[in-house]
Protein backbone atom coordinates (compact mmCIF):
# COMPACT_ATOMS: atom_id res chain seq x y z
CA UNK A 1 0.00 0.00 0.00
CA UNK A 2 1.38 3.34 -1.10
CA UNK A 3 2.12 5.95 1.53
CA UNK A 4 3.25 9.53 1.06
CA UNK A 5 4.74 10.89 4.22
CA UNK A 6 5.51 14.56 4.66
CA UNK A 7 7.29 15.50 7.87
CA UNK A 8 8.04 18.99 9.14
CA UNK A 9 8.45 20.25 5.57
CA UNK A 10 9.94 23.72 5.29
CA UNK A 11 10.20 25.44 1.93
CA UNK A 12 11.54 28.82 0.80
CA UNK A 13 11.42 30.74 -2.45
CA UNK A 14 14.02 33.22 -3.61
CA UNK A 15 12.74 36.79 -3.68
CA UNK A 16 14.44 40.10 -4.36
CA UNK A 17 14.79 40.52 -0.60
CA UNK A 18 16.40 37.12 -0.16
CA UNK A 19 14.82 33.76 0.62
CA UNK A 20 11.28 33.82 1.95
CA UNK A 21 9.99 30.91 3.99
CA UNK A 22 6.55 29.82 2.81
CA UNK A 23 6.04 26.35 4.25
CA UNK A 24 6.69 26.42 7.97
CA UNK A 25 6.66 22.78 8.98
CA UNK A 26 4.02 20.70 7.21
CA UNK A 27 3.14 17.24 8.55
CA UNK A 28 0.87 15.03 6.50
CA UNK A 29 0.52 11.35 5.65
CA UNK A 30 -1.56 10.19 2.70
CA UNK A 31 -2.16 6.47 2.26
CA UNK A 32 -3.56 4.55 -0.66
CA UNK A 33 -7.33 4.49 -0.52
CA UNK A 34 -7.52 7.79 1.37
CA UNK A 35 -8.67 11.16 0.12
CA UNK A 36 -7.37 14.19 1.96
CA UNK A 37 -8.68 17.65 1.30
CA UNK A 38 -6.45 20.61 2.00
CA UNK A 39 -8.39 23.82 2.30
CA UNK A 40 -6.97 27.22 2.83
CA UNK A 41 -7.11 30.83 1.86
CA UNK A 42 -5.24 32.22 -1.12
CA UNK A 43 -1.56 32.68 -0.50
CA UNK A 44 -1.43 30.21 2.38
CA UNK A 45 1.10 28.02 0.56
CA UNK A 46 -1.03 25.24 -0.93
CA UNK A 47 0.56 25.40 -4.38
CA UNK A 48 3.97 25.70 -2.77
CA UNK A 49 3.32 22.40 -1.00
CA UNK A 50 2.33 20.66 -4.22
CA UNK A 51 5.22 22.10 -6.25
CA UNK A 52 7.72 21.23 -3.54
CA UNK A 53 6.53 17.63 -3.46
CA UNK A 54 6.68 17.46 -7.27
CA UNK A 55 10.19 18.95 -7.24
CA UNK A 56 9.80 22.32 -8.95
CA UNK A 57 13.28 23.91 -9.01
CA UNK A 58 11.98 27.28 -7.80
CA UNK A 59 11.11 25.93 -4.38
CA UNK A 60 13.93 25.18 -2.01
CA UNK A 61 13.37 22.63 0.70
CA UNK A 62 15.12 23.93 3.80
CA UNK A 63 13.98 21.29 6.24
CA UNK A 64 11.93 18.16 6.79
CA UNK A 65 11.41 15.02 4.76
CA UNK A 66 9.12 13.65 2.07
CA UNK A 67 9.01 9.91 1.46
CA UNK A 68 6.98 7.67 -0.82
CA UNK A 69 6.84 4.13 0.52
CA UNK A 70 9.92 4.94 2.55
CA UNK A 71 11.92 6.22 -0.43
CA UNK A 72 13.37 9.71 -0.14
CA UNK A 73 11.39 11.78 -2.62
CA UNK A 74 13.51 14.90 -2.11
CA UNK A 75 16.53 13.04 -3.50
CA UNK A 76 14.72 12.31 -6.75
CA UNK A 77 14.61 14.42 -9.90
CA UNK A 78 11.23 15.70 -11.05
CA UNK A 79 10.78 12.90 -13.58
CA UNK A 80 11.95 10.26 -11.11
CA UNK A 81 9.24 11.38 -8.71
CA UNK A 82 6.63 11.00 -11.42
CA UNK A 83 7.92 7.57 -12.35
CA UNK A 84 7.93 6.60 -8.68
CA UNK A 85 4.19 7.22 -8.64
CA UNK A 86 3.60 10.87 -7.77
CA UNK A 87 1.31 13.00 -9.88
CA UNK A 88 0.54 16.69 -9.69
CA UNK A 89 -2.47 18.12 -11.49
CA UNK A 90 -1.38 21.72 -11.78
CA UNK A 91 -3.36 24.80 -10.96
CA UNK A 92 -1.94 26.41 -14.10
CA UNK A 93 -1.02 23.73 -16.65
CA UNK A 94 1.82 24.78 -18.95
CA UNK A 95 1.52 25.26 -22.71
CA UNK A 96 4.07 23.42 -24.84
CA UNK A 97 3.85 24.74 -28.42
CA UNK A 98 4.51 22.33 -31.25
CA UNK A 99 4.19 19.19 -29.14
CA UNK A 100 0.95 17.38 -29.84
CA UNK A 101 -1.17 16.14 -26.96
CA UNK A 102 -1.09 12.61 -28.36
CA UNK A 103 2.69 12.58 -28.65
CA UNK A 104 3.00 14.01 -25.15
CA UNK A 105 0.61 11.49 -23.60
CA UNK A 106 2.30 8.56 -25.26
CA UNK A 107 5.78 9.77 -24.30
CA UNK A 108 4.65 10.25 -20.70
CA UNK A 109 2.91 6.86 -20.54
CA UNK A 110 6.00 5.18 -21.99
CA UNK A 111 8.18 6.84 -19.37
CA UNK A 112 5.92 6.07 -16.42
CA UNK A 113 5.07 2.51 -17.45
CA UNK A 114 8.65 1.69 -18.35
CA UNK A 115 7.73 0.50 -21.83
CA UNK A 116 5.82 1.83 -24.80
CA UNK A 117 2.16 0.86 -24.53
CA UNK A 118 0.96 -1.38 -27.36
CA UNK A 119 -0.34 0.92 -30.04
CA UNK A 120 -3.76 -0.64 -30.52
CA UNK A 121 -4.75 -0.87 -26.89
CA UNK A 122 -3.22 2.54 -26.28
CA UNK A 123 -5.31 4.27 -28.91
CA UNK A 124 -8.42 2.67 -27.45
CA UNK A 125 -7.43 3.57 -23.92
CA UNK A 126 -6.87 7.22 -24.79
CA UNK A 127 -10.09 7.42 -26.77
CA UNK A 128 -12.13 6.01 -23.91
CA UNK A 129 -10.55 8.26 -21.31
CA UNK A 130 -11.13 11.29 -23.51
CA UNK A 131 -14.74 10.28 -24.00
CA UNK A 132 -15.30 9.90 -20.26
CA UNK A 133 -13.94 13.39 -19.74
CA UNK A 134 -16.02 14.72 -22.62
CA UNK A 135 -12.93 15.87 -24.53
CA UNK A 136 -13.29 16.27 -28.28
CA UNK A 137 -10.94 13.79 -30.05
CA UNK A 138 -9.57 16.70 -32.11
CA UNK A 139 -7.62 17.83 -29.03
CA UNK A 140 -5.23 14.91 -29.51
CA UNK A 141 -3.61 16.69 -32.44
CA UNK A 142 -3.39 20.10 -30.81
CA UNK A 143 -0.30 21.38 -29.02
CA UNK A 144 -0.21 20.61 -25.32
CA UNK A 145 -2.51 23.07 -23.53
CA UNK A 146 -1.94 25.72 -26.18
CA UNK A 147 -4.99 27.91 -26.51
CA UNK A 148 -7.03 25.61 -24.26
CA UNK A 149 -9.63 27.24 -22.03
CA UNK A 150 -9.18 26.87 -18.28
CA UNK A 151 -11.72 24.05 -18.18
CA UNK A 152 -10.12 22.23 -21.10
CA UNK A 153 -6.75 22.37 -19.41
CA UNK A 154 -8.18 20.89 -16.21
CA UNK A 155 -9.91 18.08 -18.09
CA UNK A 156 -6.60 17.24 -19.71
CA UNK A 157 -4.88 17.17 -16.33
CA UNK A 158 -7.41 14.55 -15.24
CA UNK A 159 -6.90 12.73 -18.55
CA UNK A 160 -3.23 12.45 -17.67
CA UNK A 161 -4.16 11.29 -14.18
CA UNK A 162 -6.29 8.51 -15.68
CA UNK A 163 -3.61 7.38 -18.14
CA UNK A 164 -0.61 7.60 -15.82
CA UNK A 165 -2.46 6.05 -12.87
CA UNK A 166 -0.13 7.23 -10.09
CA UNK A 167 0.10 5.95 -6.52
CA UNK A 168 -0.52 9.37 -5.05
CA UNK A 169 -2.20 12.24 -6.89
CA UNK A 170 -2.03 15.85 -5.76
CA UNK A 171 -4.75 17.94 -7.35
CA UNK A 172 -3.99 21.64 -6.98
CA UNK A 173 -7.22 23.62 -7.28
CA UNK A 174 -8.39 21.45 -10.14
CA UNK A 175 -11.88 22.79 -9.37
CA UNK A 176 -10.99 26.47 -9.67
CA UNK A 177 -12.52 28.27 -12.59
CA UNK A 178 -14.72 25.35 -13.67
CA UNK A 179 -18.36 25.75 -14.57
CA UNK A 180 -20.88 23.34 -13.07
CA UNK A 181 -20.68 20.94 -15.98
CA UNK A 182 -16.92 20.79 -16.09
CA UNK A 183 -16.80 20.40 -12.31
CA UNK A 184 -19.03 17.33 -12.59
CA UNK A 185 -16.92 15.80 -15.39
CA UNK A 186 -13.67 16.44 -13.57
CA UNK A 187 -15.05 15.15 -10.25
CA UNK A 188 -16.26 11.97 -11.92
CA UNK A 189 -12.78 11.51 -13.34
CA UNK A 190 -11.23 11.83 -9.89
CA UNK A 191 -13.83 9.44 -8.47
CA UNK A 192 -13.00 6.80 -11.10
CA UNK A 193 -9.35 7.16 -10.17
CA UNK A 194 -10.18 6.78 -6.47
CA UNK A 195 -12.42 3.80 -7.05
CA UNK A 196 -9.58 1.29 -7.36
CA UNK A 197 -8.74 1.97 -3.72
CA UNK A 198 -5.06 1.59 -4.56
CA UNK A 199 -4.26 5.27 -4.85
CA UNK A 200 -4.22 8.19 -2.49
CA UNK A 201 -5.57 11.64 -3.32
CA UNK A 202 -4.56 14.99 -1.93
CA UNK A 203 -7.20 17.40 -3.05
CA UNK A 204 -6.20 21.03 -2.68
CA UNK A 205 -9.03 23.48 -2.87
CA UNK A 206 -10.10 26.92 -1.84
CA UNK A 207 -13.81 26.15 -1.99
CA UNK A 208 -16.05 23.42 -0.60
CA UNK A 209 -18.16 22.78 -3.69
CA UNK A 210 -15.96 20.01 -5.15
CA UNK A 211 -16.29 18.20 -1.83
CA UNK A 212 -19.97 17.66 -2.60
CA UNK A 213 -18.86 15.45 -5.48
CA UNK A 214 -15.85 13.91 -3.77
CA UNK A 215 -16.23 13.19 -0.09
CA UNK A 216 -12.87 13.39 1.64
CA UNK A 217 -11.84 11.10 4.46
CA UNK A 218 -9.83 13.89 6.04
CA UNK A 219 -9.96 17.65 5.84
CA UNK A 220 -7.00 19.84 6.76
CA UNK A 221 -7.08 23.57 7.14
CA UNK A 222 -3.99 25.24 5.70
CA UNK A 223 -3.01 28.71 6.82
CA UNK A 224 0.28 30.58 7.02
CA UNK A 225 2.26 27.73 5.52
CA UNK A 226 1.10 25.03 7.92
CA UNK A 227 -1.77 22.69 8.66
CA UNK A 228 -3.58 24.41 11.50
CA UNK A 229 -6.44 22.00 12.00
CA UNK A 230 -7.43 18.52 10.85
CA UNK A 231 -10.69 16.65 11.02
CA UNK A 232 -13.23 14.66 9.06
CA UNK A 233 -15.49 15.87 6.28
CA UNK A 234 -17.56 17.79 8.84
CA UNK A 235 -14.68 20.27 9.04
CA UNK A 236 -15.46 21.28 5.46
CA UNK A 237 -19.04 22.05 6.46
CA UNK A 238 -17.77 24.20 9.27
CA UNK A 239 -15.46 26.05 6.86
CA UNK A 240 -18.33 26.57 4.49
CA UNK A 241 -20.35 28.18 7.26
CA UNK A 242 -17.62 30.19 8.94
CA UNK A 243 -14.92 30.80 6.34
CA UNK A 244 -11.24 31.04 7.20
CA UNK A 245 -11.59 33.99 9.55
CA UNK A 246 -10.89 31.85 12.60
CA UNK A 247 -7.52 30.84 11.14
CA UNK A 248 -6.41 34.00 9.46
CA UNK A 249 -8.01 36.71 11.44
CA UNK A 250 -9.37 38.03 8.15
CA UNK A 251 -12.70 37.29 6.59
CA UNK A 252 -12.43 35.09 3.52
CA UNK A 253 -15.28 32.91 2.37
CA UNK A 254 -14.73 29.19 1.86
CA UNK A 255 -18.25 28.58 0.65
CA UNK A 256 -19.54 28.02 -2.88
Amino acid at each position, binding site marked *: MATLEIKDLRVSVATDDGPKEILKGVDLTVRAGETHAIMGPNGSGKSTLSYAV*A*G*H*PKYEVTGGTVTLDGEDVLEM*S*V*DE*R*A*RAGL*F*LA*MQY*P*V*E*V*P*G*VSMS*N*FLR*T*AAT*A*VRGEAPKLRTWVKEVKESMKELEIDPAFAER*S*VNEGFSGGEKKRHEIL*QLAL*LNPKIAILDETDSGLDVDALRVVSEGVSRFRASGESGVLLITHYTRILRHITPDFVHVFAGGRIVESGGSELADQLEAEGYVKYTGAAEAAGV
Partner: protein
Amino acid sequence: MTAAVDKPHSHGAVVPEASRAEWFTSYDVAAFEVPSGREEIWRFTPMKRLAGLHTGAEASGAASVEVDAPTETTGITVETVQRGDSRLGAAGVPADRVAAQAYSSFTAATVVTVAKETQVATPVTITVTGPGAGKVAYGHLQVRAERFAEAVVVIDHRGSGVYADNVEFVLADGAKLTVVSIQDWADDAVHVSAHHARIGRDAVLRHTVVTLGGDVVRISPTAAFADKGAEVELNGLYFADAGQHFEHRTFVDHAVPNCTSNVVYKGALQGDGEGDTAAHTVWVGDVLIRAAAEGTQTYELNRNLLLTDGARADSVPNLEIETGEIAGAGHASATGRFDDEQLFYLQARGIPEDQARRLVVRGFFHELLMKIQVPEVRERLEAAIEAELEAVGA
Protein backbone atom coordinates in the same frame (compact mmCIF):
# COMPACT_ATOMS: atom_id res chain seq x y z
CA MET B 1 9.12 31.10 -24.80
CA THR B 2 7.87 32.77 -21.72
CA ALA B 3 11.18 34.42 -21.01
CA ALA B 4 10.72 36.51 -24.11
CA VAL B 5 8.36 39.31 -24.80
CA ASP B 6 6.50 39.18 -28.02
CA LYS B 7 6.16 42.53 -29.70
CA PRO B 8 3.75 42.17 -32.54
CA HIS B 9 2.69 45.51 -33.92
CA SER B 10 1.76 46.85 -37.26
CA HIS B 11 4.11 49.77 -37.41
CA GLY B 12 7.04 51.27 -35.59
CA ALA B 13 9.69 48.85 -36.77
CA VAL B 14 13.17 50.26 -37.03
CA VAL B 15 13.67 52.04 -40.33
CA PRO B 16 17.14 51.31 -41.69
CA GLU B 17 19.59 54.17 -42.05
CA ALA B 18 19.26 54.16 -45.82
CA SER B 19 15.93 53.17 -47.27
CA ARG B 20 16.05 49.79 -48.92
CA ALA B 21 14.70 51.53 -52.01
CA GLU B 22 17.97 53.43 -52.34
CA TRP B 23 20.40 50.59 -51.89
CA PHE B 24 23.17 50.50 -54.41
CA THR B 25 23.28 47.41 -56.63
CA SER B 26 25.69 46.35 -59.36
CA TYR B 27 26.89 43.22 -61.12
CA ASP B 28 30.41 44.64 -61.01
CA VAL B 29 32.54 44.08 -57.94
CA ALA B 30 34.65 47.14 -58.72
CA ALA B 31 31.61 49.32 -58.20
CA PHE B 32 31.59 48.43 -54.47
CA GLU B 33 34.07 49.66 -51.93
CA VAL B 34 35.81 47.10 -49.79
CA PRO B 35 33.72 46.97 -46.64
CA SER B 36 35.42 47.60 -43.32
CA GLY B 37 32.84 45.71 -41.30
CA ARG B 38 31.37 48.84 -39.76
CA GLU B 39 28.75 49.26 -42.50
CA GLU B 40 25.18 48.56 -41.51
CA ILE B 41 24.99 45.45 -43.69
CA TRP B 42 28.28 44.02 -42.45
CA ARG B 43 28.25 45.09 -38.82
CA PHE B 44 27.32 41.67 -37.46
CA THR B 45 29.57 39.66 -39.78
CA PRO B 46 33.01 38.52 -38.56
CA MET B 47 34.93 39.93 -41.56
CA LYS B 48 38.21 38.32 -40.48
CA ARG B 49 36.67 34.92 -40.98
CA LEU B 50 35.48 35.62 -44.55
CA ALA B 51 38.79 34.45 -46.06
CA GLY B 52 39.01 37.57 -48.21
CA LEU B 53 35.69 37.16 -50.02
CA HIS B 54 35.09 40.85 -49.43
CA THR B 55 38.59 41.98 -50.37
CA GLY B 56 38.86 40.33 -53.77
CA ALA B 57 40.04 36.81 -53.02
CA GLU B 58 40.65 34.96 -56.26
CA ALA B 59 39.22 31.54 -56.95
CA SER B 60 41.68 28.79 -56.07
CA GLY B 61 39.33 25.88 -56.60
CA ALA B 62 35.87 24.99 -57.81
CA ALA B 63 32.72 23.75 -56.19
CA SER B 64 31.00 20.82 -57.83
CA VAL B 65 27.34 21.18 -58.76
CA GLU B 66 25.36 18.02 -59.47
CA VAL B 67 21.74 18.06 -60.49
CA ASP B 68 19.65 15.02 -59.81
CA ALA B 69 16.35 15.41 -61.64
CA PRO B 70 13.61 12.80 -61.35
CA THR B 71 13.97 10.48 -64.32
CA GLU B 72 10.27 9.77 -64.81
CA THR B 73 9.52 13.35 -65.75
CA THR B 74 10.31 15.24 -68.86
CA GLY B 75 10.25 18.98 -68.82
CA ILE B 76 13.34 19.56 -66.72
CA THR B 77 16.37 20.88 -68.51
CA VAL B 78 19.78 21.13 -66.90
CA GLU B 79 22.39 23.27 -68.60
CA THR B 80 25.87 24.47 -67.83
CA VAL B 81 26.29 27.86 -69.42
CA GLN B 82 29.03 30.45 -69.78
CA ARG B 83 29.11 33.91 -68.25
CA GLY B 84 27.60 35.64 -71.25
CA ASP B 85 24.28 33.76 -71.19
CA SER B 86 21.64 36.42 -71.54
CA ARG B 87 19.30 34.81 -69.00
CA LEU B 88 21.72 35.24 -66.13
CA GLY B 89 21.10 38.06 -63.73
CA ALA B 90 17.40 38.22 -64.57
CA ALA B 91 16.19 37.67 -61.02
CA GLY B 92 18.20 40.39 -59.36
CA VAL B 93 21.36 42.43 -59.08
CA PRO B 94 23.99 41.94 -56.36
CA ALA B 95 23.50 44.35 -53.48
CA ASP B 96 26.72 43.79 -51.62
CA ARG B 97 30.35 43.40 -52.52
CA VAL B 98 30.65 39.67 -51.93
CA ALA B 99 27.62 38.94 -54.12
CA ALA B 100 29.12 41.19 -56.81
CA GLN B 101 32.48 39.43 -56.38
CA ALA B 102 30.75 36.11 -56.96
CA TYR B 103 28.93 37.52 -59.98
CA SER B 104 32.17 38.88 -61.41
CA SER B 105 34.15 35.72 -60.71
CA PHE B 106 32.16 32.61 -61.63
CA THR B 107 33.28 30.82 -64.77
CA ALA B 108 30.26 28.64 -65.52
CA ALA B 109 26.68 28.73 -64.27
CA THR B 110 24.11 25.99 -63.84
CA VAL B 111 20.64 26.68 -65.21
CA VAL B 112 17.76 24.37 -64.32
CA THR B 113 14.52 25.00 -66.19
CA VAL B 114 11.11 23.54 -65.47
CA ALA B 115 9.12 23.69 -68.69
CA LYS B 116 5.76 25.44 -68.79
CA GLU B 117 2.78 23.62 -67.34
CA THR B 118 4.98 20.80 -66.09
CA GLN B 119 4.29 19.44 -62.64
CA VAL B 120 7.17 17.67 -60.99
CA ALA B 121 6.22 15.84 -57.83
CA THR B 122 9.63 14.42 -56.96
CA PRO B 123 12.16 16.99 -55.79
CA VAL B 124 14.99 18.04 -58.06
CA THR B 125 18.12 17.84 -55.93
CA ILE B 126 21.06 20.09 -56.63
CA THR B 127 24.11 19.10 -54.63
CA VAL B 128 26.77 21.75 -54.23
CA THR B 129 30.02 20.47 -52.77
CA GLY B 130 32.55 23.00 -51.52
CA PRO B 131 35.99 23.38 -53.16
CA GLY B 132 37.79 21.75 -50.23
CA ALA B 133 39.53 23.05 -47.14
CA GLY B 134 41.59 26.21 -47.74
CA LYS B 135 40.23 26.75 -51.25
CA VAL B 136 38.05 29.57 -52.55
CA ALA B 137 35.35 29.15 -55.20
CA TYR B 138 32.60 31.20 -56.80
CA GLY B 139 29.41 29.92 -58.34
CA HIS B 140 26.15 30.78 -59.99
CA LEU B 141 22.90 28.89 -60.16
CA GLN B 142 19.62 29.78 -61.76
CA VAL B 143 16.32 27.94 -61.41
CA ARG B 144 13.62 28.88 -63.90
CA ALA B 145 10.01 27.91 -63.53
CA GLU B 146 8.10 28.68 -66.72
CA ARG B 147 4.41 29.58 -66.91
CA PHE B 148 2.33 27.40 -64.59
CA ALA B 149 5.22 25.04 -63.92
CA GLU B 150 5.26 23.41 -60.48
CA ALA B 151 8.36 21.94 -58.92
CA VAL B 152 10.32 21.33 -55.76
CA VAL B 153 14.03 22.06 -55.73
CA VAL B 154 16.37 21.06 -52.93
CA ILE B 155 19.79 22.70 -52.94
CA ASP B 156 22.11 20.78 -50.72
CA HIS B 157 25.36 22.47 -49.71
CA ARG B 158 28.03 20.33 -48.15
CA GLY B 159 31.77 19.91 -47.89
CA SER B 160 34.64 22.24 -47.03
CA GLY B 161 36.15 25.47 -48.24
CA VAL B 162 35.14 29.03 -48.98
CA TYR B 163 32.25 29.61 -51.36
CA ALA B 164 30.35 32.66 -52.54
CA ASP B 165 27.54 32.52 -55.04
CA ASN B 166 24.34 33.98 -56.41
CA VAL B 167 21.27 31.80 -56.72
CA GLU B 168 18.43 33.00 -58.91
CA PHE B 169 14.81 31.94 -59.01
CA VAL B 170 12.86 33.17 -61.98
CA LEU B 171 9.16 32.43 -61.68
CA ALA B 172 7.00 33.11 -64.70
CA ASP B 173 3.29 33.84 -64.33
CA GLY B 174 1.39 31.22 -62.36
CA ALA B 175 4.47 29.15 -61.49
CA LYS B 176 4.71 27.43 -58.14
CA LEU B 177 8.20 26.79 -56.92
CA THR B 178 9.22 25.28 -53.61
CA VAL B 179 12.88 25.69 -52.70
CA VAL B 180 14.74 24.25 -49.78
CA SER B 181 18.35 25.38 -49.47
CA ILE B 182 20.25 23.35 -46.93
CA GLN B 183 23.62 24.55 -45.64
CA ASP B 184 25.07 21.52 -43.94
CA TRP B 185 28.72 22.41 -44.37
CA ALA B 186 31.75 20.99 -42.63
CA ASP B 187 33.06 22.95 -39.63
CA ASP B 188 35.65 24.95 -41.63
CA ALA B 189 33.34 26.15 -44.40
CA VAL B 190 32.59 29.78 -45.20
CA HIS B 191 29.57 30.42 -47.38
CA VAL B 192 28.25 33.81 -48.45
CA SER B 193 25.28 33.56 -50.72
CA ALA B 194 22.74 35.92 -52.25
CA HIS B 195 19.44 34.46 -53.38
CA HIS B 196 17.39 36.51 -55.81
CA ALA B 197 13.80 35.69 -56.64
CA ARG B 198 11.74 37.40 -59.29
CA ILE B 199 8.15 36.34 -58.99
CA GLY B 200 5.67 36.67 -61.83
CA ARG B 201 1.95 37.33 -61.76
CA ASP B 202 0.00 34.96 -59.48
CA ALA B 203 3.15 32.90 -58.95
CA VAL B 204 4.00 31.36 -55.59
CA LEU B 205 7.47 30.88 -54.17
CA ARG B 206 8.00 28.91 -50.98
CA HIS B 207 11.61 29.39 -50.05
CA THR B 208 13.14 27.71 -47.03
CA VAL B 209 16.69 28.13 -45.83
CA VAL B 210 18.09 25.58 -43.44
CA THR B 211 21.48 26.31 -41.95
CA LEU B 212 23.03 23.64 -39.78
CA GLY B 213 26.76 23.59 -40.40
CA GLY B 214 29.72 25.75 -41.35
CA ASP B 215 32.02 28.26 -39.66
CA VAL B 216 30.42 31.38 -41.18
CA VAL B 217 27.27 31.13 -43.26
CA ARG B 218 25.60 34.28 -44.50
CA ILE B 219 22.57 33.95 -46.75
CA SER B 220 20.71 36.95 -48.14
CA PRO B 221 17.44 35.98 -49.82
CA THR B 222 15.72 38.75 -51.76
CA ALA B 223 12.24 38.37 -53.20
CA ALA B 224 10.88 40.87 -55.71
CA PHE B 225 7.44 40.79 -57.25
CA ALA B 226 7.28 41.38 -60.97
CA ASP B 227 3.51 41.52 -61.14
CA LYS B 228 0.29 41.39 -59.13
CA GLY B 229 -1.26 38.56 -57.17
CA ALA B 230 1.96 36.78 -56.30
CA GLU B 231 2.91 35.24 -53.02
CA VAL B 232 6.17 34.49 -51.29
CA GLU B 233 7.03 32.58 -48.17
CA LEU B 234 10.54 33.01 -46.85
CA ASN B 235 11.17 30.44 -44.16
CA GLY B 236 14.33 29.74 -42.30
CA LEU B 237 15.54 27.29 -39.72
CA TYR B 238 18.98 27.41 -38.19
CA PHE B 239 20.80 25.61 -35.43
CA ALA B 240 24.08 27.13 -34.36
CA ASP B 241 26.68 25.53 -32.12
CA ALA B 242 29.65 27.06 -30.33
CA GLY B 243 31.87 29.08 -32.67
CA GLN B 244 29.41 29.19 -35.56
CA HIS B 245 28.17 32.42 -37.11
CA PHE B 246 24.95 32.03 -39.08
CA GLU B 247 23.48 35.14 -40.60
CA HIS B 248 20.28 35.45 -42.62
CA ARG B 249 19.17 38.66 -44.25
CA THR B 250 15.80 38.52 -45.91
CA PHE B 251 14.40 41.28 -48.09
CA VAL B 252 10.93 41.36 -49.60
CA ASP B 253 10.44 44.12 -52.13
CA HIS B 254 6.78 44.94 -52.65
CA ALA B 255 6.75 47.19 -55.72
CA VAL B 256 3.46 46.06 -57.26
CA PRO B 257 -0.05 45.79 -55.82
CA ASN B 258 -1.82 42.86 -54.16
CA CYS B 259 1.06 40.60 -53.29
CA THR B 260 1.52 38.63 -50.09
CA SER B 261 4.70 37.87 -48.19
CA ASN B 262 5.28 35.88 -45.08
CA VAL B 263 8.67 35.54 -43.44
CA VAL B 264 9.25 33.04 -40.63
CA TYR B 265 12.77 32.39 -39.36
CA LYS B 266 13.46 30.34 -36.28
CA GLY B 267 16.76 29.45 -34.74
CA ALA B 268 18.19 27.50 -31.85
CA LEU B 269 21.60 28.25 -30.39
CA GLN B 270 23.70 26.19 -28.10
CA GLY B 271 27.21 25.59 -26.88
CA ASP B 272 29.44 27.36 -24.41
CA GLY B 273 31.86 30.02 -25.45
CA GLU B 274 32.56 33.72 -25.53
CA GLY B 275 33.21 36.17 -28.34
CA ASP B 276 34.14 34.30 -31.52
CA THR B 277 33.78 30.95 -29.79
CA ALA B 278 30.13 31.48 -28.87
CA ALA B 279 27.25 30.56 -31.12
CA HIS B 280 26.05 33.67 -32.92
CA THR B 281 23.08 34.08 -35.21
CA VAL B 282 21.77 37.13 -36.99
CA TRP B 283 18.46 37.67 -38.64
CA VAL B 284 17.73 40.92 -40.41
CA GLY B 285 14.35 41.03 -42.08
CA ASP B 286 13.74 43.93 -44.45
CA VAL B 287 10.35 44.50 -45.98
CA LEU B 288 9.78 47.44 -48.30
CA ILE B 289 6.28 48.34 -49.39
CA ARG B 290 6.65 50.88 -52.15
CA ALA B 291 4.09 53.52 -52.96
CA ALA B 292 2.64 51.49 -55.82
CA ALA B 293 2.20 48.33 -53.73
CA GLU B 294 -1.38 48.82 -52.61
CA GLY B 295 -3.18 45.87 -51.09
CA THR B 296 0.05 44.36 -49.80
CA GLN B 297 -0.16 41.79 -47.06
CA THR B 298 3.03 41.08 -45.17
CA TYR B 299 4.12 39.56 -41.92
CA GLU B 300 7.51 38.65 -40.60
CA LEU B 301 8.55 36.74 -37.55
CA ASN B 302 11.83 35.71 -36.04
CA ARG B 303 12.23 33.61 -32.96
CA ASN B 304 15.37 32.40 -31.29
CA LEU B 305 15.74 29.79 -28.62
CA LEU B 306 18.87 30.06 -26.49
CA LEU B 307 19.61 26.60 -25.18
CA THR B 308 22.73 27.60 -23.27
CA ASP B 309 24.21 30.73 -21.76
CA GLY B 310 26.66 32.73 -23.83
CA ALA B 311 24.98 32.16 -27.19
CA ARG B 312 23.93 35.36 -28.92
CA ALA B 313 21.07 35.95 -31.34
CA ASP B 314 20.57 39.29 -33.06
CA SER B 315 17.16 39.93 -34.53
CA VAL B 316 16.33 43.04 -36.53
CA PRO B 317 13.03 43.50 -38.34
CA ASN B 318 12.86 46.50 -40.69
CA LEU B 319 9.53 47.43 -42.13
CA GLU B 320 9.29 50.39 -44.52
CA ILE B 321 5.86 51.37 -45.70
CA GLU B 322 5.43 54.01 -48.39
CA THR B 323 1.70 53.64 -48.94
CA GLY B 324 -1.25 53.76 -46.58
CA GLU B 325 -3.31 51.45 -48.75
CA ILE B 326 -2.05 48.13 -47.47
CA ALA B 327 -4.03 45.07 -46.40
CA GLY B 328 -1.81 44.35 -43.44
CA ALA B 329 1.76 44.54 -42.22
CA GLY B 330 3.28 43.26 -39.05
CA HIS B 331 6.31 41.74 -37.47
CA ALA B 332 7.35 39.98 -34.32
CA SER B 333 10.72 39.14 -32.95
CA ALA B 334 11.58 37.32 -29.79
CA THR B 335 14.65 35.73 -28.32
CA GLY B 336 14.24 33.67 -25.21
CA ARG B 337 15.94 31.25 -22.95
CA PHE B 338 14.76 27.71 -22.73
CA ASP B 339 11.49 27.69 -20.80
CA ASP B 340 12.02 25.90 -17.51
CA GLU B 341 8.28 25.73 -16.83
CA GLN B 342 7.78 23.63 -19.95
CA LEU B 343 10.60 21.39 -18.89
CA PHE B 344 9.12 21.02 -15.42
CA TYR B 345 5.71 20.18 -16.80
CA LEU B 346 7.02 17.44 -19.07
CA GLN B 347 9.27 16.02 -16.37
CA ALA B 348 6.39 16.05 -13.90
CA ARG B 349 4.78 13.54 -16.24
CA GLY B 350 7.74 11.21 -15.96
CA ILE B 351 9.58 12.28 -19.11
CA PRO B 352 13.36 12.36 -18.47
CA GLU B 353 15.03 15.75 -18.78
CA ASP B 354 17.01 15.11 -21.98
CA GLN B 355 13.96 13.77 -23.73
CA ALA B 356 11.85 16.66 -22.44
CA ARG B 357 14.36 19.18 -23.81
CA ARG B 358 14.27 17.51 -27.19
CA LEU B 359 10.49 17.58 -27.22
CA VAL B 360 10.48 21.30 -26.52
CA VAL B 361 13.06 22.09 -29.21
CA ARG B 362 11.30 19.91 -31.75
CA GLY B 363 8.09 21.67 -30.80
CA PHE B 364 9.76 25.02 -31.34
CA PHE B 365 10.60 24.09 -34.94
CA HIS B 366 7.41 22.17 -35.56
CA GLU B 367 5.47 24.96 -37.26
CA LEU B 368 8.34 25.48 -39.70
CA LEU B 369 8.85 21.81 -40.42
CA MET B 370 5.15 21.47 -41.19
CA LYS B 371 5.58 24.10 -43.89
CA ILE B 372 7.98 21.79 -45.69
CA GLN B 373 5.58 19.67 -47.64
CA VAL B 374 8.17 17.31 -49.05
CA PRO B 375 8.22 14.35 -46.64
CA GLU B 376 11.75 13.19 -47.41
CA VAL B 377 13.13 16.68 -46.87
CA ARG B 378 11.17 17.13 -43.67
CA GLU B 379 12.36 13.79 -42.32
CA ARG B 380 15.93 14.63 -43.14
CA LEU B 381 15.61 17.94 -41.25
CA GLU B 382 14.00 16.26 -38.28
CA ALA B 383 16.89 13.83 -38.19
CA ALA B 384 19.38 16.70 -38.50
CA ILE B 385 17.79 18.56 -35.58
CA GLU B 386 17.87 15.35 -33.59
CA ALA B 387 21.58 14.98 -34.39
CA GLU B 388 22.27 18.58 -33.31
CA LEU B 389 20.63 17.86 -29.97
CA GLU B 390 22.51 14.59 -29.55
CA ALA B 391 25.78 16.37 -30.19
CA VAL B 392 25.59 18.35 -26.97
CA GLY B 393 23.68 15.70 -25.08
CA ALA B 394 20.83 18.17 -24.65
